[in-house]
């Protein structure tokens, strides 16, 4: 090496644009125009859709008017129902966030600012389509009108928790709602969703599956394995990436955002890719509907990047003021998904401020009532409500001798200790 007259190499380490204390300036944010992106036929070959991975599907303009070919032209009832579900998710998050702060549970995760990405998607899917969520898609359950009390029971790990207090809060499972059990290991649900879709296709079923992960999680191997499988077998699956800009304290650049978009991950695999404004409920709905029709028509998978912003901390264990500018969420150029849909329905003349305020009060009351009902079954800290024996159940279908022995040992120990 000696004697080579070359400049030293340097390592590029990504750095976010704004850090705590910085004034944010999104002036150079290239705001895509609502209605500008073409809507391809559902059978379009992925190779012809390359541009869709770099553009951004937007339907709602700054005045709240729906624009262009992606306008899903939803009935007023559907629009108002989506609005209500989004408001309900926000109210639900608010309640449980406070419950965590009051020490009633160990942990909580909000999806503030990302409500459209799960609510509008759920509305565009059929109820019997199978969802493989990550931990920030409580909106799927809300949109499927799953009982709030049941969700809260899980968060509180109380007597009513169908999961027997085994999962961390927010790791729901609801088979009847076609909602898969949430894993704490990022991206593992990705190949599983593809496998489910492959099975459905192999069986000549008509149901499809949909899966969600964060942009940070796209760096996991499972994500790439899943895309390979999805492309190879043309699996009827919708692969959602929620790009909320942050993975705990790591900005999206650490998952590759400086070099390309997340929708463009689809290009190399020969999958249709769509990039949508994730704070635009109509765009999310339209993209999901397009992808669902495509899947149902045996045209294969679609990867949808939902470009959004995580308006709050990663979880109750996180303090985002330590690593990002406080102004980011308030100045986010794509706005707030609830405010934008509200503006739209008001502009349509089917909604007004009074009704909105009344709805906010009503969903807050609903959550309060559900919390009361759930807390009557206990919260995490007012005594461990799960029967101790249940710890040994469900490891195997039938309990083998060594678990029977250990469960007996536990009972004996507790008895001897007088507890």
């Amino acid at each position: 090496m000696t004697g080579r007259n070359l400049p030293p190499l340097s390592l590029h380490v990504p750095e976010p644009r704004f850090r705590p204390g910085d004034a944010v300036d999104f002036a150079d944010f290239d705001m895509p125009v609502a209605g500008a992106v073409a809507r391809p036929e559902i059978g379009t070959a992925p190779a012809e859709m390359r541009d869709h991975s770099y553009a951004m599907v937007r339907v709602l303009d700054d005045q709240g008017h729906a624009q262009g070919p992606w306008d899903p032209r939803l009935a007023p009832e559907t629009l108002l129902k989506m609005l209500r579900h989004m408001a309900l998710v926000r109210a639900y998050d608010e309640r449980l966030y406070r419950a965590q702060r009051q020490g009633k549970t160990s942990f909580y995760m909000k999806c503030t600012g990302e409500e459209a990405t799960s609510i509008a998607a759920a509305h565009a899917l059929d109820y019997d389509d199978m969802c493989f969520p990550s931990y920030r898609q409580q909106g799927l359950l809300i949109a499927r009108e799953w009982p709030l009390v049941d969700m809260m029971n899980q968060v509180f790990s109380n007597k009513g928790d169908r999961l027997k207090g085994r999962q961390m809060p927010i790791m729901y499972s609801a088979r009847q709602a076609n909602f898969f059990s949430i894993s704490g290991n990022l991206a593992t649900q990705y190949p599983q969703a593809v496998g489910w879709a492959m099975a459905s296709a192999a069986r000549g079923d008509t149901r499809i599956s949909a899966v969600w992960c964060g942009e940070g999680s796209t760096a996991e191997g499972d994500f790439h394995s899943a895309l390979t499988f999805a492309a190879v077998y043309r699996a009827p699956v919708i692969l959602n990436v929620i790009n909320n800009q942050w993975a705990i304290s790591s900005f999206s650049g650490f998952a590759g955002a400086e070099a390309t978009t997340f929708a463009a991950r689809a290009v190399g695999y020969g999958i249709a890719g769509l990039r949508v404004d994730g704070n635009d409920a109509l765009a999310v709905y339209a993209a999901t509907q397009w992808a669902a029709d495509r899947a149902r028509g045996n045209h294969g998978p679609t990867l949808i990047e939902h470009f959004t912003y995580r308006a709050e901390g990663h979880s109750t264990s996180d303090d985002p003021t330590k690593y990002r500018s406080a102004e980011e969420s308030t100045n986010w150029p794509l706005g707030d998904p609830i405010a934008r849909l509200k503006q739209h329905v008001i502009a349509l003349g089917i909604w007004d401020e009074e009704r909105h305020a009344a709805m906010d009060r009503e969903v807050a009351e609903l959550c309060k009532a559900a919390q009361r009902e759930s807390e009557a079954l206990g919260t995490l800290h007012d005594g461990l409500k799960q029967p101790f024996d249940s710890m040994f159940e469900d490891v195997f279908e039938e309990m083998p001798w060594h678990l029977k022995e250990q469960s007996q040992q536990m009972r004996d120990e507790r008895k001897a200790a007088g507890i």
Partner: protein
Amino acid sequence: MNMIQAINSAIDICMGRDDEIVVLGEDVGFFGGVFKATEGLQAKYGKTRVFDTPITECGIIGVAVGMATYGLRPVPEIQFADYIYPALDQLVSEAARLRYRSAGEYTAPITVRTPFGGGIFGGQTHSQSPEGIFTHVAGLKTVIPSNPYDAKGLLIAAIEDNDPVIFFEPKRIYNGPFDGHYDRPVQPWSKFPESAVPEGYYRVELGKARIVRPGDDVTILAYGTMVHVAQGVVADAGIDAEIIDLRTLVPLDLETIAKSVKKTGRCVVVHEATKTSGFGAELSALVQEHCFHHLEAPVQRVTGWDTPYPHSLEWAYFPGPVRLGEALKRVMQD
């Protein structure tokens, strides 16, 4: 039948009885698998039930878990056990715990088949015995046959089991038993009674060991290829050893083990995997816990060394007749 044919027959019978069973893995379809375990199945059951996959083990197992969630019963093949590590997370965090974490809402009844073990000059990436890693994981069953009859019956039981099962196939004895002397050829299975495999359906229950040879002096606990090594050593040395083929490590047939050790008072554990934290450690601990007052000598472990599996020196790595013979001598002297 040899062991490959027995395995093929087991899958064939299961697929014929239950159309929810699907087979997936690298090269398993048209080609029938690199060891030919799935030969003919695609032609018989079609491409949507037996199909080749991309080379991504985490994908294979992840997809299998998803298919199981849908309601199928996937039988994925990992081409060599050495390549199971990329799939480890899907096995450990997903398949094994799905029933538990969803309180029974979702299950993953998959049977992961994989050839394992050395003796074929496979070097350090085609010879490993990772069974101990899986026995450590709550929620997985671990099965290892030692002969064609058991392979078929155990595999049928594994495929029908509603829990995720890892089915390790000792590749050194796919074609015939092998006494561990590297200079002696593998005998074709056709010469041995265990190759009398019924064409039709039968099960060998998981969790039941087999007494290969009754004896009074010492208990040898073995599985897979090591059962044959033990048989060879005992025959050569004229020791009245009781050889137990464990057949399944989880669930384990402790009753048969304890009964035997209480009778003989001596125990030697033999496996091919590395020694430290290997399944032999678990077996010795269990024997010590349950048979301490009957023991006349410390339990001996005969294992591979705590090194990767070497290519050219594989016979020095392999816990063959010499190493087992020495251990038997030690345990008999006490």
